């Protein structure tokens, strides 16, 4: 497919298509959608982290409380008591056993939210408490309490490439370290919420806040025991997702649908912040042990790594998270000899799942600090060390995938260093506040990759109306990232109409086939290609109609500035549409795209893991107050190779917002669990960055076109979150001379280390 740059547009048309409804407060988030005679749901939850359910002490009392219309327990689920994710281990409602604090056991519907809440709070479950296990390393021990999976392993992957022993024998210098990271909470501003409503012909319709309408559809079919045609799922405006609304909304929707199905009335189930904190997914805490071997010249010759994540009580998406982690764990470098293992462990904590970066921020944080530690040991500039090893077109990744021509890795590094003036930063800070700079480099497999290839597809419908305006039905969603605008641009630029003529319809599972999830930076590439495919099909009709009028062949026509042009003349887009309507040509078409040629051999861990990679470099300047341990990021520059940019302001916004989450991840966000229970389930207990904590992130867009992408685009949503943590910790080292190997890196951690005389080597591992 030839690559073309979208046409230049005037300033005003840079405005996102969803901006007006959002600045006017008229966007309809699920809690803003009004229904008549609606009931309100609430969830009765486990008060313990692990135990056997003996019974429901006061079910009759609950049922007779004011306003209560229904109480549902697991035995009343009409279909299967399973919310389907990667594995089928997560019950919709706990039946015999509870495995984490807050797990759903029963549901209530009442006339008001207060009545529903009061009923749920009054419920008394009889539970025999079991001992729990909360730490992933403990979960691996032979005498650990059994929680789930295969001996508490939710999933295991490995990579074996070259000869690891020979590789390390050929190394002059070897460094090995262990890095730890904590949970991270999505903190989308809009909590989870769904409304389920019985509709005509015995079907049920669910509307709500979500990233993946088709996951929700599958879950409802499973739990209700309905046919696919008796379920409809519609996405409402969604107040942020970041992965937290990938799989979790299936649970919320299934619960709302069970209540609606039982009562025959619409039921709203909207979480409050505390409930959302306790029960919805988180970024996996991790322990990464990694070892690099290099020659004195700085050539990386071997890498051994072990990645252990705490998956929590149920498997959800842990296998794919751990898989993405291991594919990227050796860093964006060409290394011949690799041995890597990843484990997602079961514990009695809240299930962890998708969060922007999906297992990669944890490993990037580890390998990108280790590469700096290696540089120190080699007495080499960390930039130079990276440059000797970075992936470039023709290099082989850890899984032996050959890097294609769309690879702006080196350009992102050069542009970032240039902008932040990396070479000029060495100051002589006399006072207690020390400045430092650090960098990190990232490669990122776009989309779901070989382990998610069954979802690696998307549909769309483009339908031109009589006046030339266009309806586009899509299967991938807007959740703040700008997908509506990207689809609008791709459709308009393909048809040659203006942006204001293209309406993106709300995602609805009855309009478009299963388009996979809206995750993994895949919407632009996969959904965008589906829109383009549909638009091209309709454009054929327009070419035909215009050709007939001008007396030329359809392939003689080109589109320029909203006109269909041939040697015989030109016709405005709207007039071409008119001609197409007069000659009764097809004016609507379904588009389709599927990702081909990905592979992964589970025995060796080798294969073409992803269709293409995005590349980025982060550099930052920090100030460390060595008396208080407080770190301030003064500047953060992030350059991203995105293929081609479809909508620059949205692309910049992704970079700035992702980096902000990463600054929080590195320095502030500290979820505290005591005996498996979250003790700070609020936005004041778990602090995310405010305007006072962040600098202005400086984005740089690097374009290295990808032939398969729509207008050359790759994907951008996740990469901005991946790299900054390591850059920040490398900068803290630059400022203080101390390597910190745990995030969040809190002031107390820094002060504690500064008060030690020497930076001790970490304990040897068994």
């Amino acid at each position: 497919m030839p690559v073309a740059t979208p046409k230049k547009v005037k300033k005003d048309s840079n405005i996102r298509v969803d901006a007006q409804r959002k600045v006017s407060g008229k966007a309809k988030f699920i809690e803003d959608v009004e229904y008549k005679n609606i009931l309100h749901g609430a969830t009765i939850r486990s008060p313990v982290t692990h135990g056997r359910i003996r019974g429901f002490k006061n079910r009759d009392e609950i049922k007779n409380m004011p306003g209560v219309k229904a109480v549902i327990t697991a035995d009343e689920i009409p279909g299967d008591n399973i919310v389907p994710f990667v594995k089928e281990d997560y019950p919709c409602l706990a039946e015999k056993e509870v495995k984490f604090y807050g797990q759903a056991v029963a549901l209530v519907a009442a006339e008001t939210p207060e009545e529903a809440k009061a009923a749920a709070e009054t419920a008394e479950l009889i539970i025999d408490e079991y001992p729990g296990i909360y730490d992933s390393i403990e979960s691996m021990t032979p005498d650990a309490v059994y929680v789930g999976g295969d001996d508490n392993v939710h999933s295991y992957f490995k990579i074996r490439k070259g000869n690891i022993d020979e590789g390390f024998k050929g190394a002059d210098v070897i460094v090995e370290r262990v890095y730890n990271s904590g949970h991270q909470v999505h903190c989308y501003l809009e909590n989870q919420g769904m409304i389920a409503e019985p509709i005509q012909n015995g079907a049920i319709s669910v509307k709500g806040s979500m990233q993946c309408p088709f996951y929700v559809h599958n879950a409802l079919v499973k739990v209700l025991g309905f046919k696919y045609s008796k379920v409809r799922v519609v996405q409402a405006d969604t107040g942020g997702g970041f992965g937290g609304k990938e799989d979790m909304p299936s649970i919320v929707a299934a619960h709302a649908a069970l209540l609606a199905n039982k009562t025959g009335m619409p039921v709203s189930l909207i979480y409050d912040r505390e409930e959302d904190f306790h029960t919805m997914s988180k970024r996996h805490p991790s322990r990464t042990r990694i070892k690099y071997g290099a020659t004195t010249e700085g050539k990386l010759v071997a890498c051994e790594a072990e990645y252990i994540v705490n998956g929590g009580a149920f498997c959800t998406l842990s296998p794919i998270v751990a898989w993405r982690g291991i594919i990227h764990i050796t860093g964006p470098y060409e290394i011949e000899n690799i041995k890597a293992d990843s484990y997602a462990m079961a514990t009695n904590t809240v299930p962890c799942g998708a969060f922007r970066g999906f297992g990669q921020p944890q490993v990037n944080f580890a390998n990108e600090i280790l590469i700096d530690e290696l540089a120190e040991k080699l007495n080499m500039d960390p930039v130079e060390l990276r440059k000797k090893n970075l992936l470039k077109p023709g290099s082989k990744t850890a899984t032996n995938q050959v890097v294609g021509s769309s690879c702006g890795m080196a350009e992102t590094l050069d542009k970032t260093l240039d902008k932040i003036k990396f070479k000029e930063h060495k100051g002589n800070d006399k006072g207690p506040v020390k400045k430092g700079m650090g960098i990190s480099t990232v490669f990122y497999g776009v989309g779901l990759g070989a382990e998610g290839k069954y979802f690696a597809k998307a549909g769309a419908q483009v339908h031109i109306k009589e006046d030339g305006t266009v309806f586009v039905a899509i299967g991938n969603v807007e959740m703040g990232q700008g997908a509506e605008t990207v689809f609008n641009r791709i459709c308009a630029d393909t048809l040659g109409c203006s942006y204001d003529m293209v309406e993106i319809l709300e995602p609805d599972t009855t309009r478009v086939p299963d388009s996979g999830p809206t995750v993994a930076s895949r919407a632009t590439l996969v959904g965008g290609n589906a829109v383009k495919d549909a638009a091209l099909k309709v454009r054929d009709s327009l070419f035909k109609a215009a050709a007939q009028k001008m007396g030329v062949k359809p392939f003689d026509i080109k589109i320029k500035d909203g006109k269909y042009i041939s040697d015989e003349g030109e016709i405005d887009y709207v007039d071409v549409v008119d001609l197409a309507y007069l000659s009764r040509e097809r004016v609507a078409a379904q588009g389709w795209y599927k990702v081909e040629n990905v592979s992964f051999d589970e025995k060796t861990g080798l294969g073409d893991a992803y269709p293409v990679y995005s590349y980025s470099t982060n550099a930052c300047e920090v100030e460390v107050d060595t008396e208080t341990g407080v770190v301030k990021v003064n500047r953060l520059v992030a350059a991203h190779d995105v293929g081609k940019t479809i909508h620059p302001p949205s692309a910049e916004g992704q970079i700035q917002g992702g980096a902000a989450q990463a600054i929080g991840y590195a320095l502030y966000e500290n979820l505290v669990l005591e005996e498996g229970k979250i003790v700070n389930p609020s936005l004041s207990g778990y602090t995310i960055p405010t305007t006072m904590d962040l600098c202005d992130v400086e984005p740089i867009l690097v374009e290295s076109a990808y032939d398969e992408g729509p207008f050359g685009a790759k994907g951008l949503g996740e990469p901005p979150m991946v790299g900054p943590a390591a850059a920040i910790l490398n900068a803290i080292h630059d400022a203080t001379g101390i390597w910190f190997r745990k995030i969040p890196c809190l002031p107390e951690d820094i002060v504690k280390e500064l008060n030690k005389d020497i930076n001790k080597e970490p304990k040897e591992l068994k």
Partner: protein
Amino acid sequence: MNISFILNGNKVKVEVSPEKPLLRVLREDLDVMSVKEGCGRGECGTCTVLLDEVPVTSCMVAAGQVRGREITTLEGLESSGAISDLQQAFKEAGAVQCGFCTPGFIISAYALLKENPDPSRDEIRVAVSGNICRCTGYTKIIDAIELAAKYNKGLNNEI
């Protein structure tokens, strides 16, 4: 209990218990939907409204406290045209992503520009520090408020 107050310039009367949060009164009893609940505990700023022209988180204000006072929401500022520059600036600067926090930010920004028509970036940071955004990293929101200040100087002396 009967509570009367001025909402967006009009006198309104609601029959609610005095401890009901203003946020719920606005949404449930008066259909004011721009006011969002993000936390219910005064931590996120998505429910920011003006109480006698001062920005407050409406989840932390009890209905009884607003009796006889003046409440202004995005709806009111929009219909009077008072925030048209801010809205345009938010759109042009790319300050909107998911949009859930946007009404709260616009209210806080409006209150700032009314007090201080020419704020520095640091003054903007302080003024909106009670509003949390998880999508943007704030840069483009601060850009938007700076841009609105510029528009105000050229186009509109009202704000």
